[in-house]
């Protein structure tokens, strides 16, 4: 479970003095994300979506408020938070740390200091979950965009997280690749994985998600089941769904 209480974050490249007065990117947000839920976080560019989710696993420290994962403050145990909340980023190509699939997916478990056998098991399990089993020895730069996106997800799954957070996972993917990622997310969700998708492209996601959050100007302005949120939104913002 991820809990945010009165979270505020201001633009980082400011001196301390002007920082206190600057306009917050995330403005006093409180939010709870339950285990196993499929959440879509939508909103226009610059509304603070990426900044918000980067607090879930301590990639950013809030200026005010608190974040807890599974009841424990993120700042107290960053490793636990990053294990429980795994993340993929827009353009996964810059997140790969090794030239081959196996070495990249193993990176997280290796950092956790697991035994060899456990690492191998996790790598196989994670690749199977994204239907990339058997690609262990392939070079990442020879994979297609959709395959790279799925390997990036496998790298996150190898942490055996409770929540998988995907920041703009569909940018740059063609339609078949997008479908292949959506299918995998649906399967993972069915197996009980908590999923958070940050996106401005809601197509087909509303059927999968059980909660839609809409952010604007650093605040969550809508929160609820996709259908009802979209009802409220109609006429206000155009959201293709």
């Amino acid at each position: 479970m991820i809990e945010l209480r009165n979270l505020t974050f201001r633009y980082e490249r400011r001196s301390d003095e002007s920082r206190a007065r600057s306009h917050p990117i995330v403005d006093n947000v409180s939010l709870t994300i339950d285990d196993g839920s499929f959440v879509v976080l939508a909103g226009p560019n610059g509304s603070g979506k990426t900044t918000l989710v980067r607090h879930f696993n301590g990639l950013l420290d809030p200026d005010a408020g608190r974040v807890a994962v599974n009841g424990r403050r993120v700042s107290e145990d960053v490793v636990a938070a990053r294990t429980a909340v795994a993340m993929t980023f827009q353009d996964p190509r810059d997140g790969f740390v090794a030239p081959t699939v196996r070495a990249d997916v193993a990176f997280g478990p290796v950092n956790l200091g697991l035994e060899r056998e456990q690492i191998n098991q996790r790598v196989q399990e994670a690749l199977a979950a994204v239907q990339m089993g058997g690609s262990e020895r392939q070079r990442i730069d020879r994979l297609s965009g959709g395959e790279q996106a799925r390997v990036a997800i496998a790298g996150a799954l190898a942490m055996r997280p409770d929540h998988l957070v995907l920041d703009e996972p569909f940018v740059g993917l063609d339609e078949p690749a997008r479908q292949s990622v959506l299918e995998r997310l649906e399967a993972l969700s069915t197996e009980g994985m908590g999923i958070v998708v940050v996106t401005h492209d809601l197509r087909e996601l509303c059927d999968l998600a059980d909660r839609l959050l809409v952010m604007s100007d650093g605040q969550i302005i809508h929160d609820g089941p996709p259908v009802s949120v979209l009802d409220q939104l109609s006429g206000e913002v155009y959201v293709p769904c």
Partner: protein
Amino acid sequence: MTEPSRERTAEDEGNTRGTDVELVGDAVTINVARAALFAALIGAFSYVSFPNPVSPTPVTLQVLGVFLAGIFLGPIWGGTACVLYIVAGILGAPVFAGGAAGFGVLVGPTAGYLWSMPVAAFTVGMVVHGGFTPSDPKSNGPIRLVSAMVAGTVLIYATGVIGMMFTLDLALSEAFITGAVVLVPAEVLKIAAAVGIVRSDAITAS
């Protein structure tokens, strides 16, 4: 370089998951990423060749990459970038001139140039930033930048020529003709290019 005992931290934290993991600090992490990317960039620079104004041997930008590493990453991490470049090359990354790789390059004709790279990046970084901590390279005058790179050039070519004398058993004059005369003029252009890069607003490193 001490490795804290895992058992102790695990007991202290009393948590089941991952608490014995000793995370690399945020500042070091970003510097490791930058050093690795600059090492790859120095390697990629050996694939872009320009016509040499004074010789048929084409000019590549590797030496420029070494200078830029010192300028943008500072002496410590700029030097680290060059070490990573060399070690990756020894272990088979095709990063050396002409897509070469392997341990042999360390004792080959160009060995001196390679050995001097980390020192050159360190020196350039020290002169530009006036210490170990990187500052904004733009804040320093062009004279400081140019003298840093002239020092770097002298260092790289002096070591390169000495390396050739040793590995190929040449006299100083012969090594100088083979290893410096036709290459140094292009370095002047690279220094000028580097000043242009640093003083333009195209790059903002924090």
